[in-house]
């Protein structure tokens, strides 16, 4: 018994030290203590109807909590929450029933930035076709699209560049690099569409250099 207690203590201490190095994990279902009763009831009613549609409800509570913390009145908070619910619904229509909650949130952010639903759907199809078994296929393309459009890249140019990179096997890391590089170029004065074309071409060249060229069959 004493031996077991000693062993357990050592194991817990070892786990604790490893965990201390690893950082904290937010609660999987954080509460919303800051919401007033009437606002909370209104969000819960909306969440009930959204849940029936198979949409994630957590972003709605997070949006309401954000508005409350930022000092917005309840009417303004509910306008933002309803808009988000509509964008999540539109994202699901564009991306299909198979989209995960994170992908729907990313799609909603692209729609919020001003991307038309048909372009979101187009990018979603391109990313799905090149999806790997590792999953998480749509989040980064959609996040990259949303952020580039928010920085005045035209949606058409952004989607075309992303489609091109995805078809060449670009992964999340390359898309994230594109996002930061384009943002830096625009901040430096580059025209947004030129920046995205130039940067995506550069990444595409890198991807082509990564794979060995196909040998031509002998002719003649």
């Amino acid at each position: 018994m004493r031996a077991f207690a000693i062993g357990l203590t050592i194991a817990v201490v070892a786990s604790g030290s490893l965990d201390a190095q690893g950082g904290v994990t937010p609660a999987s279902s954080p509460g919303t203590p800051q919401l007033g009763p009437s606002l909370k009831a209104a969000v819960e009613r909306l969440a009930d109807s959204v849940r029936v549609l198979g949409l994630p409800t957590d972003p709605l509570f997070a949006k309401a909590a954000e508005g409350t913390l930022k000092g917005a009145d309840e009417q303004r908070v509910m306008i933002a929450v309803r808009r988000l619910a509509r964008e999540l619904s539109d994202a699901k229509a564009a991306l299909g029933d198979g989209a995960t909650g994170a992908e729907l949130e990313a799609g909603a952010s692209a729609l919020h930035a001003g991307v038309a639903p048909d372009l979101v759907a187009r990018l979603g199809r391109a990313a799905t076709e090149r999806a790997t078994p590792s999953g998480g296929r749509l989040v980064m393309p959609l996040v990259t699209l949303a952020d580039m459009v928010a920085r005045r890249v035209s949606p058409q140019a952004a989607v075309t560049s992303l489609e091109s990179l995805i078809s060449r096997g670009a992964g999340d890391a390359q898309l994230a690099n594109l996002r930061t590089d384009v943002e830096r170029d625009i901040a430096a004065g580059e025209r947004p569409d030129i920046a995205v074309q130039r940067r995506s071409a550069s990444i595409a060249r890198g991807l082509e250099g990564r794979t060995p060229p196909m040998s031509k069959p002998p002719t003649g």
Partner: protein
Amino acid sequence: MKNPDPSLEVDEPVDRALRVAIAEMREGIAVRPEWRAELLAKVPARRRRAAIARWMPASLAAVLCLGLGLTALVRWHGSTSAIEPRVASQVRFSIHAPSATQVSLVGDFDHWDPSALPMQRARDGETWTLDVHLRPGRHVFAYAVDGDLKTDPSAPRAVEDDFGVPSSVVVVVASGGTR
């Protein structure tokens, strides 16, 4: 009876003495009943102690391995794989706020609750940091510095500004990095 081996022949008195000694040894040693009870009471205790001594290193090692194994499993799940949508990657948040007395991280991941993720003052006394596990994707966040919301100067601004107060964005890549 004649001994078949002549070399083993012994004198009659010696033979008699040997027979007596063997008979006494076969009878066993007479022990007082109270000693016997005391002796028997001690034997199981010694056996238990011996068993503990024998199994203690093994049980210690097993428990340690179990604990470390579970920890490694949790950390592996929380590191880089994108197979499970709920995997998380570690992100270090930091803000320079030398005169602040209380700083916390708020964002969609903690429902903008200033009490959920308090940050720690670093050794330099001026920077506040916090390591957080976030799942891959895009997260909107800000810092609550003594009650005021501040954006992260090193992170992009969020495009959605529904409430007139800007936020920052962090993107957690499935391969474990942040952008």
